């Protein structure tokens, strides 16, 4: 597997592991073919359909695996991305191989459908965790931390009072999560406000139609090699040195195509 990386902050494009198919992934969006144009399965020599298919690939984080040192070690990235994230991708591909109904959905659709309103189908865990980890790597950057600026900072101040208050609430959420899970900063569409969410295991705010802006992985495998059981240190280090407010800014800007956060700007003729 190549260790190609992107040095810019924005989510990287990556080639999608397609064996025998022309599916390419652009900016993380899967191109789905309508039923009629579904690519023909390649027939092997014996005339049977090939049973090798791949649906999702392991996307590389937008930085080298040692770029987050000393806050998140290369060893952790190797196990977390190369082990856990990789296994979720492989697991998902194996499951999709068996299930034609789910083929052709975008990742977000797949997550919502397999979440099944709280009675998740077996594919949910893998699908959601693939998405969660892609999102998580992109939520961090070397030289991260500090504070958001401009519109994002204003929105945080509006919804939490101050950045300090938001930070406290976020850290508290992370430290009071029981078991494995994630902590999120989300934008709630209808209410047009930001909120902090705690989710268990693989659940993410997409299932409630909220727009995630940033996340923190609180599964033990995310911090145990570097911090042992010292969750507080890990969470503080994340807030001080890892979280990418630049990416969160990009995400909230994109979200504003769907949510009007302020008064409409009517240009004067």
């Amino acid at each position, binding site marked *: 597997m190549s260790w190609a990386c992107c040095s810019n902050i924005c989510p990287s494009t990556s080639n999608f592991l397609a064996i025998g198919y022309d599916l390419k992934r652009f900016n993380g969006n899967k191109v789905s073919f309508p039923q009629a144009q579904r690519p023909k399965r390649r027939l092997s020599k014996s005339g049977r359909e090939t049973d090798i298919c791949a649906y999702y690939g392991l996307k590389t984080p937008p930085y080298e695996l040692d770029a987050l040192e000393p806050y998140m070690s290369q060893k952790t990235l190797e*196990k977390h991305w190369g082990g856990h994230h990789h296994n979720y991708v492989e697991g998902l591909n194996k499951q999709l191989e068996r299930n034609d109904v789910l083929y052709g959905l975008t990742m977000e659709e797949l997550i919502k459908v397999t979440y099944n309103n709280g009675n998740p189908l077996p594919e949910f*865990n893998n699908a959601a965790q693939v998405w969660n980890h892609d999102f998580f790597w992109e939520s961090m950057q070397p030289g991260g931390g500090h504070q958001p600026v401009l519109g994002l900072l204003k929105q945080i101040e509006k919804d939490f009072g101050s950045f300090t208050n938001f930070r406290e609430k976020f850290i508290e959420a992370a430290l009071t999560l*029981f*078991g494995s*899970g994630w902590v999120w900063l989300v934008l709630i569409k209808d209410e047009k406000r930001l909120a902090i969410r705690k989710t*268990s295991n693989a659940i993410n705010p997409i299932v409630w139609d909220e727009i995630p802006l940033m996340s923190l992985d609180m599964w*033990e*495998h995310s911090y145990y090699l570097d911090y*042992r059981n010292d969750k507080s240190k890990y969470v503080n280090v994340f807030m001080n040195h890892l979280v990418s407010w630049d990416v969160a800014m990009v995400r909230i800007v994109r979200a504003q195509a769907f949510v009007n956060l302020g008064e409409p700007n009517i240009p004067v003729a």
Partner: protein
Amino acid sequence: MAFRTLVTKTSLRSSFEQIRGIQTTPFTLPDLAYDYGALEPAISGEIMKLHHQKHHQTYVTNYNKALEQLDAAVSRSDSTSIAKLHAALKFNGGGHINHSIFWKNLAPVAEGGGEPPKGSIGDAIDTQFGSVEALVQKMNAEGAALQGSGWVWLGLDKELKRLVVETTANQDPLVSGGSNLVPLLGIDVWEHAYYLQYKNVRPDYLKNIWKVINWKFASEVYEKEFPKT
């Protein structure tokens, strides 16, 4: 001046307790019957030490804290606070219960760890699962498939009088699956139980832990429920 130095934090607390009549019987961290390194190479000494001194201790500390808060809420007849404490009590109390059993489920090889079960429990296993190997396979499969954090148990259903293999999430004790369930053997599959040594390869941890499983304890619990006539 002298009076002020007499009034320390602890004396204030105990006089406060006397006034309110609180019976605080805090739970404490039980000792292990073996050294931290005694279960190597199946489980490393580093993991055992962290697991016992940090994780289990934290559950005990937070359990006691939650119980104190519960006491206070009960005295105030504050139902909202009582309801809010349920999650913390279940999580931390469960953590204490589960880990206390876990330490007894393990033993160094020199003290019988890994030796196959004898007596009535051995017969029950053979009857219900075919063999100990088959039971181990089943428990390992369920343990490996568990998403997130939790435990895999060999339990005894007192009512149906049969052995069961169950999993519980997070720190839910086995009894949360049914009040008729008695835990005989529990394996912690939280990542902290194996990550430093086995990294993300949980199946390897599950394969190796059987080398230090203390069947004697499981057998004792089983025979207490079903004494030999």
